[in-house]
């Protein structure tokens, strides 16, 4: 088959490394890079101007473009405007860069206001929006250019807050994003199920594209203090991630207690911070495990690499994890991993141990066995390292291009061959 014209993509993101607070930025970087290297021309839109440039795509910042009238906005968001007064969301939860303050929903709206004119000024055949923060922008861009919209879901409101505690305004923004989209892309099968069940979206419209990771050898040297512990005959079990309800830190502590009953020479290292950090430290103290836990705060880059080097086992007991990139980092560093079945990444991993997050005995049993049987840990780390090499962003990009092409199919006319203004007829109702 002759290679067909690849679509050009207008991608709406919220953050981008190194200006990111979470996985969303990492995923956007990995995906955009892999798409570009597959030959897909890409314009990446961000809400705020940040000093960033990458070789593979052009950045557009919303706060530099023309304004859409306030009235158009009101009409578009009439459905959930009334709730806006009560909304206040912590920055760390949503991925909003720390430097930006102010009401989040207002920022999301301000972003969306610029989307129409951005769509008119930048040539594209597909609109691709990442998570609810960018869905209003994606919807308005679609209204402006008439191009198909893909809403990519990395984490739903249910994943962030647990079922009882969801913010209904955000829920409605997500729902609108899914409904207005031509295709919804979910980062795992379990996220896809949520989109279908909790938001009532037709199954045919929701596709799964798993995240990837760039493999690069961890050549860091082992963290010194942990190295000393290991030389003294101790094992290291590692937790990496935000210390929030959804990551299951409380289950990690309960598991640690069980492990220590059989393997007393074990230390539990926690890297991360979050709103449950204090509660976790208190729980550790209550259980009398304070001398077996090491809290090292939020680590990144080389510091984290050095801790990975020291770990004998990595555990991710997430209660709800749409994907979960961290175990892949551990696998790159040749650390045996245990992930919960409640994580999206468990759907694609073969060379990993798996448990339900609530099954403390099962998790502890597996950790103890890995610590006891050198052969088991070697097999897991060897096979895991091989496997993680196959989970690359290129694979994700290929699946996405398939989705793009399925949408592109309907257009026989060359897209935006004339002036961008031609799209204005489709947004006449504004």
């Amino acid at each position, binding site marked *: 088959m002759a290679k067909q014209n690849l679509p050009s993509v207008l991608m709406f993101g919220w953050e981008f490394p190194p200006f990111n607070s979470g996985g969303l930025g990492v995923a956007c970087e990995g995906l955009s890079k892999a798409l570009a290297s597959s030959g897909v021309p890409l314009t990446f839109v961000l809400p705020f101007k940040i000093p960033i440039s990458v070789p593979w795509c052009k950045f557009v910042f919303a706060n530099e473009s023309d304004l859409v009238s306030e009235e158009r906005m009101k009409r578009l968001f009439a459905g959930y405007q009334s709730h806006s007064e009560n909304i206040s969301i912590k920055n760390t939860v949503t991925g909003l860069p720390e430097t930006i303050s102010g009401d989040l929903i207002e920022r999301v709206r301000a972003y969306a206001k610029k989307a129409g004119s951005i769509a008119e000024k930048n040539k594209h055949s597909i609109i691709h929006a990442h998570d609810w923060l960018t869905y209003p922008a994606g919807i308005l861009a679609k209204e402006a250019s008439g191009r198909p919209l893909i809403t990519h879901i990395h984490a739903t409101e249910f994943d962030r807050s647990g079922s009882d505690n969801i913010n209904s305004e955000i829920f409605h923004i997500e729902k609108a994003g899914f409904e207005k989209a031509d295709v919804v892309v979910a980062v795992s099968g379990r996220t896809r199920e949520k989109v279908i069940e909790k938001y009532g979206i037709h199954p045919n419209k929701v596709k799964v594209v798993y995240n990837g990771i760039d493999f690069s050898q961890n050549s860091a040297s082992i963290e010194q203090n942990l190295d000393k512990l290991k030389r003294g005959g101790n094992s290291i079990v590692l937790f990496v991630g935000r210390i929030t309800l959804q990551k299951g830190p409380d289950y990690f502590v309960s598991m640690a207690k*069980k492990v220590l009953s*059989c393997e007393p020479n074990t230390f539990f290292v926690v890297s991360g911070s979050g709103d449950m950090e204090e509660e976790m430290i208190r729980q550790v103290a209550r259980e009398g495990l304070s001398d077996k836990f090491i809290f090292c705060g939020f680590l990144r880059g080389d510091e984290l690499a050095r801790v990975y080097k020291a770990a004998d086992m990595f555990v991710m007991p997430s209660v709800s994890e749409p994907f979960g990139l961290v175990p892949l980092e551990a696998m790159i560093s040749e650390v045996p991993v245990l992930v919960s079945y409640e994580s999206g990444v468990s759907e694609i991993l*073969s*060379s*990993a*141990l*798996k448990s339900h997050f609530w099954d403390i*005995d*099962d998790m*502890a*049993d*597996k950790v*103890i*066995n890995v610590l006891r*049987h050198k*052969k*088991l840990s*070697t*097999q*897991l780390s060897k*096979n895991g390292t*091989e*496997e993680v090499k*196959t989970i690359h962003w290129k694979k994700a990009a290929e699946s996405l291009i398939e989705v793009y092409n399925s949408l592109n199919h309907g257009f026989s006319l060359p897209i935006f061959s004339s002036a961008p203004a031609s799209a204005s007829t489709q947004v006449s109702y504004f």
Partner: protein
Amino acid sequence: MHQPLRVRKYRIFDVGERSDYFSDASGTSLDNKFIIDKVSQKSYLPANRVILENIKRNPNFKVSFSISGLALEQFEKFAPAVIQSFQELVNTGNVELLSETYHHSLSSIYDRDEFETQVKLHRRKLKDLFGVTPTIFRNTELIYSNEIAKMAEEMGYRGILAEGADHVLGWRSPTFLYKPVGTENIKALLKHYKLSDDIAFRFSQRSWSEWPLTADKFGGWVSAHNGNGHSVNLFMDYETFGEHQWEDTGIFEFLRYLPEAILANPDNDFVTPSEAVERYPTAGELDVPNHTSWADTERDLSAWMSNDLQKQALDTIYELGKEIIHVDDPILQEDWRRLQTSDHFYYMCTKFWNDGDVHKYFSPYESPYEAFIAYMNVLQDMRLRLSLAKKREEHGISLTRLKPLRFSEM
């Protein structure tokens, strides 16, 4: 035919608390009773019915079965109808039963004494249930070597089954009988793997150029060997009929018409392995210094002992045996033998795990690592039981040494 006793989810915290390793009752693929019920209904019972009808219609139709002791004892316990239907088949006189290790183990490789014990246990089981004594040996998963042939000969067998692997036969044909190197009185019957696998693996494969396979077509392929061989040895899992190849593939119809299709050529007939050994001379020596088997594409031992998990598990179980066989604790010994079944090590195979291959299909565990963990936890409990048994024995001995105390002597 074989069904292992699968080890339940057994955690480190169960060690010393419970020793019912094979008692899963979850209705999943770890539940041994559930599997026996399912496979009996889907495969053993309907296949036996077809074979019995075939024998009644064609008195020259013959079949042989090698049924592991663990399969037989599970039928007795969970599906007695299967035992009855085999008794009926054996009573026709057209069905031969072969010898193997009771526990479907790898003991032929690891421990000769244990190997002989398990073969004897199996012979006794056949005698008890069917009143027959086998004269042909087939080892676990068709594992074979010069040495195993020699052992079988020394145990009095006249024939032994093996895989007709290309790397063993070279240009020679599996349709002749061969004399294993270093033996005098035993003949090797080799599996015609192409024709066997046409039924066992390819029967329902729509991408196969010969699909659909009819009994007539297959009969033609068998007949084509006339004048160039003595016997076409079709060896396969009995679960091929109804379990690996489902009923809706037409596999039972195929089996039903196979006798007529083959007997349509007057030069063909059916023989059991012992009749073949009786009737045909050997066509040369067969030299197999390294083990062969019928598993995977490698046809070697790699399905059970290619990675470090498998090796450690095997080393540990046979190491334990050195003491267990000397302890007077029949239940501990029986558990030890049940843990030798080859399937336990097959589940730990990581060869093709990532590609979702046949090991995954057959494994009741989430991964080879989980199979290893459950197994090693059980061995931990076995070790504990062994040391308790040894203590009991010492205690028992010291008690008998103690003279009875009499008041008159005090």
